[in-house]
């Protein structure tokens, strides 16, 4: 799993500069009325706004969960080692 993650990350690092080399689309020859734009250009804003806010909330909640689970694990380990240490000192 870790190797797969490392490989994916390495791929992203290698692929990013190749996107930078892509040529930008050529400018239009003349003015185009908005009504005759292809469907792709008449993009509704609402889904983009909803996705943006959902991403922010998911990242915040995901990170909070990550800290909480790591902290719980570390505190459990701390209690366990403290108990072992106390038992060792009593002997």
């Amino acid at each position, binding site marked *: 799993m870790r190797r797969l993650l490392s490989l994916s990350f390495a791929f992203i690092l290698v692929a990013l500069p190749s996107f930078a080399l892509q040529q930008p689309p050529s400018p239009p020859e003349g003015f185009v009325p908005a009504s005759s734009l292809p469907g792709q250009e008449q993009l509704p*804003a609402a889904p983009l*706004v909803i996705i943006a806010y959902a991403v922010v909330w998911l990242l915040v909640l995901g990170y909070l969960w990550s800290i909480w689970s790591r902290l719980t694990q570390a505190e459990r380990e701390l209690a366990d080692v403290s108990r072992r240490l106390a038992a060792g000192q009593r002997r």
Partner: protein
Amino acid sequence: MKKLFTPLLIVTAALFAYAPFAIQNAPYESTMGLVQKIFYFHVPAWIAMFLAAMVCGIAGAIVIFAGRKDADRVALAAAELAVVFGLMGLITGPLWGRKAWGVWWQWDARLTSALVMWLVFVAYLLLRKYGGAGSEKLSAVLALFGMANVPFVYWSVNVWRTVHPKTSVVMTLEPSMGIPFLLCSLAFVGLFAVLLAARVRLETVRASVDELYLSLED
């Protein structure tokens, strides 16, 4: 910090609960319309990212020159937050750009420098995870480079030609847009402080576990 944590958590939660209503009541921007509302989370996410980068850099400098372990814990926590808040900015920005500029991404000065700064903090975390013993000081140097990027990223829109709005946009906001923006910015700064405190606490507990293991071996 312990005394401040609960009030800060309550204030931050209240600000985040109120933020959607403030954003909804803010007027539509004349040229971009609804999609401009991403601004109210996008810019505060970058403010929190810059804050995290500066905290990480300052803590890194303390690690390098004073060798303090508590500063190292703060630097690691801040670096992780810089990656999280940076990721928010890097995802919400293209969603805005797709509608406002017609493209998801443009390799201009602002976007590229922001991506590079984010990658510096990803590198910091990778170095801490896989760098082995002694990686603290090496990563502290990386934190300084990450912090040094902040003014370049901030002023890049004013110095170079870029599709990104200039920094003057924030200063010239109408009160009807400025107040929701201020609320969201305060919410993100509060969130940063709360998460930083929680993340530092995690590192402190981990350090205590390591110390106890050493005592156990003795």
